[in-house]
């Protein structure tokens, strides 16, 4: 098919080059400068998709971001992008796109599908469906997902890169139309650092769509000279194809720059850039979006916005059809009429709801012999695949009914205008409240909340002369507010003023005979009709926010940019109030959709989150360790030997540690160096037990609570000197504990003379554990390791294998253990030396899993596994570590009524009836078993393992009043059967602690 609707001349397209593209698998041709939408219209493609709920055929309505129907899937494979409006896609050679919403296909018979869907999806469909039992929703979902087909996400990794930019400026100007250009010129001439952003490929905004005149020349000549002047200013940055999509606190504005518009490739660097701009002052010059008039079957392909029709003719040299009727309530649509007539397009008629349109433009129209049907409205758009007839009736004086006979006007396109809505989205996001203007029947920005001002059409100043004047003033005042007041002697741009008569506020054409036939669409994207909004009102959803959610009005990818205000008008009419009383819904970012790639930027893969490894990491990798993530650390989980399962490896590691010697990389344990005359006092306040009597060289286990009495962290702290301690924390909590100590020192106890500093990564720690640990260490150091010389819970400095070391005799396994700390740079060498010297003793490296099993055999807790922020030390049976005398953080809370309840969950052990069964961690525990839920849940399993040393499974659990229940039988109902267990003491192995003290 050739470009049948391409006009012989005009438009900002390069006719010397022809581009070939495909849409829904058919080949077409267009020119550079086209959008996909303009090229499709040039080729006479009228149906571009199906509607969401009813599967009605849909055509292109708009020429910009507000397009609700022509959403396409662009490209294929890893670079495919869903839900792009065809109006925003710049045409390139080889472009391939498909409708996102054309199940079963674009050309399928209309009627049967419509009838099938219509009754099952009324307003409130989602709401009501979600209220039903979930199984119904699952059934619907399958149908809806296939039917809706709202684009497909790529399934392969994104091959492109995306960047983030952070910048500051004095004045950010959003919008490169006449107002924005004027503002940028004024601010730039005043000497301000300016960023001008515009979403289009070229500057000019609405001027690109118009045959306007500035300074007695074509307006785009002025645009070009303005762009040249701005480009010559050192402190002005212009970003085209860039959308300001979010306006956040303190003038923080987010921009999306599309850097590759043709076929994607990585040669040009990033595909998109996410800009984060902190602006001293912002000028919003975001223009306006035309709104339709609503009548029966107004979604018929061929019904378009009048301004869009004008844009296709003037900017792209395309007429959307050969014979165009116009339906309006304002003078601006007559610009479309006159431009079309100048281009030789046949005007079927102009239907104006006003009885006496007296403006300059209607008068010109009438003078050219074009028929204007006054005081009338289009009641229905008729046709099959596309519009062929507009049915017109007269309005009565109040415009509440239509009267007389129906006049049928044959036409291929109906260009509709209900006036323009200022694009106040960013203003609304900035926190400002909109104000309603009665004469233009639209919302405009009210008082500024942030350092911003609006200029031009987005401020309700629609005339070109006003846009220019407001832009200049806004740019100058923004620059001045930012401290730049240099005066400019440049001539101000001037445009002729056109005498425009007022529009007549008009939203929905009254139904013929009071009974509505056909569908009156407010939101074609989401298939929301007038009837849906009326239903919501009748069902009591009076608030505009509730109506929005109930009907999904304005919730599609276009965010209701065209039809939202009609919904408000209907609500106002039904409630008998005016539109501002109904109020508008809040606009939220993003203004237009933003890709996930842009948000993710380079923070993907290995850069998503830092990976921390210990100095011994390479050894673990070479030994074939399996790793687990503990916070950002990679810790060896277990060290499988050839052919071993995890269970076999862990059993072997556990037995070796209990019977000979095991070695653990404990470098990840948090280490906080605490120094100062008040160090003991600090520990006394943050730990639940007493610290002032701890001798130098001795270690003590401590618990930390938050002020609500709940356990927060635990660890062993050692007194290295009179005023010097080394605190250890759990691996995942090290930063939180340091921040916690700093918070108290800075905010509550600034009088304490003490400093805390993280030294976690300064030290590497190898923990050797087991009956042969002392023998091995004895071979590598010359200090006395005898039990009375180096008892459990003490510390010595020594050389180990020639390296200066701090040795802590502390144990998390229940065996005699030495944690050997050396400067991190010696970590790998120390580890290797220990492995070499330990070989004759069967030294066995073990990972976190074995550590967990061994400590669970001893009933030692792990903060964050046995605790979840709701567990006190008393709940854990650790009264022995809680001082009754001194104050500490959380102490008072332990006496709160809730913390002394007898039925608090308490730490217990569980032994399964069948010793081979291992309970799942997190499983719920019941005392009384019933056939089916609900059953009273009395607790849950916190840790559970097979213990090779004991020959049976063990588990720790938190159970209501658990300590009193020792010996009771409980049940753990699981999918596929119930396990039975007995409540026991949580210490399963060596309760006297003979082994770790020996």
């Amino acid at each position: 098919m050739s470009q049948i609707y391409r006009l012989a001349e005009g438009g900002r397209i390069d006719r010397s080059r022809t581009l070939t593209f495909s849409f829904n698998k058919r080949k077409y041709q267009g020119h550079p400068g086209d959008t996909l939408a303009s090229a499709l219209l040039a080729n006479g493609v009228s149906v571009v998709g199906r509607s969401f709920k009813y599967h009605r055929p849909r055509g292109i309505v708009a020429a910009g971001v507000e397009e609700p129907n022509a959403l396409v899937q662009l490209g294929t494979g890893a670079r495919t992008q869903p839900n792009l409006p065809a109006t925003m896609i710049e045409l390139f050679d080889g472009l391939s796109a498909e409708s996102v919403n054309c199940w079963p296909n674009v050309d399928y018979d209309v009627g049967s599908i419509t009838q099938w869907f219509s009754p099952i999806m009324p307003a409130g469909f989602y709401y009501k469906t979600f209220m039903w039992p979930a199984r119904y929703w699952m059934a619907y979902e399958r149908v809806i997902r296939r039917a809706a087909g709202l684009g497909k996400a790529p399934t392969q990794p994104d091959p492109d890169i995306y960047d983030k930019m952070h910048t500051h400026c004095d004045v950010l100007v959003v919008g490169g139309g006449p107002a924005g250009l004027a503002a940028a010129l004024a601010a730039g001439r005043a000497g301000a650092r300016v960023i001008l952003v515009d979403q289009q490929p070229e500057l000019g905004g609405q001027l690109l769509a118009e045959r306007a005149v500035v300074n007695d020349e074509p307006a785009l000549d002025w645009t070009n000279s303005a762009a040249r002047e701005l480009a010559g200013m050192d402190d002005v940055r212009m970003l085209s194809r860039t959308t300001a999509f979010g306006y956040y606190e303190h003038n923080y504005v987010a921009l999306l720059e599309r850097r590759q518009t043709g076929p994607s490739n990585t040669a040009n660097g990033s595909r998109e850039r996410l800009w984060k701009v902190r602006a001293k002052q912002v000028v919003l010059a975001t223009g306006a979006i035309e709104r339709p008039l609503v009548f029966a079957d107004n979604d018929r392909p061929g019904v378009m916005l009048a301004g869009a029709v004008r844009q296709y003719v003037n900017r792209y040299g395309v007429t959307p059809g050969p014979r165009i009727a116009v339906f309006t309530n304002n003078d601006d649509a007559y610009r479309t009429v006159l431009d079309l007539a100048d281009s030789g397009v046949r005007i079927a008629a102009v239907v104006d709801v006003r009885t006496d349109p007296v403006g300059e433009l209607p008068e010109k129209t009438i003078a050219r012999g074009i028929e204007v049907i006054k005081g009338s409205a289009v009641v229905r758009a008729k046709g099959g695949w596309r519009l062929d007839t507009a049915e017109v009736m007269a309005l009565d004086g109040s415009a509440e009914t239509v009267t007389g006979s129906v006049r049928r006007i044959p036409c291929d396109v109906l260009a509709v205008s209900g006036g323009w809505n200022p694009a106040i989205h960013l203003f609304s996001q900035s926190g400002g409240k909109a104000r309603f203007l009665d004469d233009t029947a639209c919302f405009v920005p009210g008082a500024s909340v942030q350092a911003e001002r609006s200029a031009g059409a987005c401020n309700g100043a629609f005339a070109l002369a006003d846009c220019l004047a407001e832009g200049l003033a806004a740019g100058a005042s923004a620059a001045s507010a930012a401290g730049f007041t240099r005066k400019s002697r440049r001539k101000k741009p001037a445009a002729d003023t056109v005498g425009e008569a007022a529009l007549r506020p008009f939203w929905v054409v009254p139904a013929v005979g009071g009974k509505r036939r056909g569908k009156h669409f407010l939101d074609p994207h989401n298939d929301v009709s007038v009837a849906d909004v009326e239903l919501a009102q009748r069902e009591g959803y009076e608030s505009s926010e509730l109506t929005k959610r109930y009907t999904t009005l304005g919730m599609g990818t276009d965010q209701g940019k065209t039809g939202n205000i009609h919904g408000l008008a209907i609500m106002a009419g039904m409630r008998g109030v005016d539109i501002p009383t109904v109020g508008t819904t809040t606009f939220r970012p993003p203004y237009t959709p933003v890709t996930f790639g842009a948000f993710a930027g380079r923070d993907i893969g290995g850069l998503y989150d830092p990976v921390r490894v210990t100095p011994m990491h390479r050894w673990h990798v070479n030994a074939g360790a399996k790793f687990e993530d503990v916070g950002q650390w990679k810790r060896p989980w277990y060290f499988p030997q050839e052919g071993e399962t995890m269970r076999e490896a862990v059993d072997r590691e556990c037995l070796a540690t209990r019977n000979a010697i095991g070695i653990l990389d404990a470098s990840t344990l948090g280490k906080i160096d605490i120094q100062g005359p008040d160090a003991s006092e600090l520990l006394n306040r943050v730990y639940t037990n007493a610290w002032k009597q701890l001798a130098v060289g001795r270690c003590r286990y401590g618990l930390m609570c938050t002020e609500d009495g709940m356990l927060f962290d635990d660890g062993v702290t050692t007194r290295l000197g009179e005023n010097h301690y080394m605190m250890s924390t759990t691996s995942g909590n090290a930063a939180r504990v340091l921040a916690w100590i700093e918070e108290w020192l800075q905010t509550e106890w600034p009088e304490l003379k003490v400093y805390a500093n993280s030294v976690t990564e300064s030290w590497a720690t190898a923990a050797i554990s087991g009956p042969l640990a002392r023998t091995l260490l004895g071979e590598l150091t010359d200090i006395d390791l005898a039990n009375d010389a180096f008892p459990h819970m003490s510390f010595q400095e020594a050389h180990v294998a020639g390296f200066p070391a701090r040795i802590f005799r502390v144990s998390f396994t229940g065996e005699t253990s030495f944690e050997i700390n050396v400067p991190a740079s010696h970590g790998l060498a120390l580890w290797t030396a220990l492995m070499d010297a330990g070989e004759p003793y069967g030294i066995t490296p073990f990972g976190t899993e074995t550590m967990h099993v061994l400590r669970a055999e001893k009933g030692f807790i792990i903060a964050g596994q046995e605790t979840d922020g709701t567990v006190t030390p008393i709940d854990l049976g650790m009264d022995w570590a809680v001082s009754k005398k001194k104050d500490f953080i959380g102490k008072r809370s332990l006496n709160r009524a809730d913390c002394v309840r007898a039925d608090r969950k308490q730490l217990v052990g569980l032994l399964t009836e069948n010793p081979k069964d291992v309970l799942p961690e997190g499983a719920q525990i019941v005392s009384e078993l019933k056939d089916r839920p609900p059953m009273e849940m009395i607790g849950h399993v916190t840790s559970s393992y097979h213990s090779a040393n004991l020959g049976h499974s063990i588990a720790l659990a938190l159970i209501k009043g658990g300590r009193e229940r020792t010996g009771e039988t409980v049940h753990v109902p699981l999918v596929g059967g119930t396990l039975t267990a007995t409540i026991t003491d949580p210490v399963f192995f060596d309760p006297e602690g003979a082994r770790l003290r020996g």
Partner: protein
Amino acid sequence: MLLIHCPWCGPRDEIEFKYGGEAHITRPTEPDALSDTEWADYLFMRTNAKGLHRERWVHSAGCRRWFNVARDTVTNEIFASYKMGEKPPVEGGS
């Protein structure tokens, strides 16, 4: 993204800070002397002001210092930042 003025480092993006809740709540010197209700008031009850609110922030990705901010919770306007222990420079509010 608030622009927060750290008293030590100057204006920085909110992402560098962590929030610390209402400011000027002093830990009772003798917790054991308080009733459960009085202790709960210290522990749990906050003013949740609409308008002027004095709150704690810490420059966690910067100098790691805690300080106070007087902010309007409706408009997010920040009236002042001031160091721990300093008298609030903004009067009024709750």
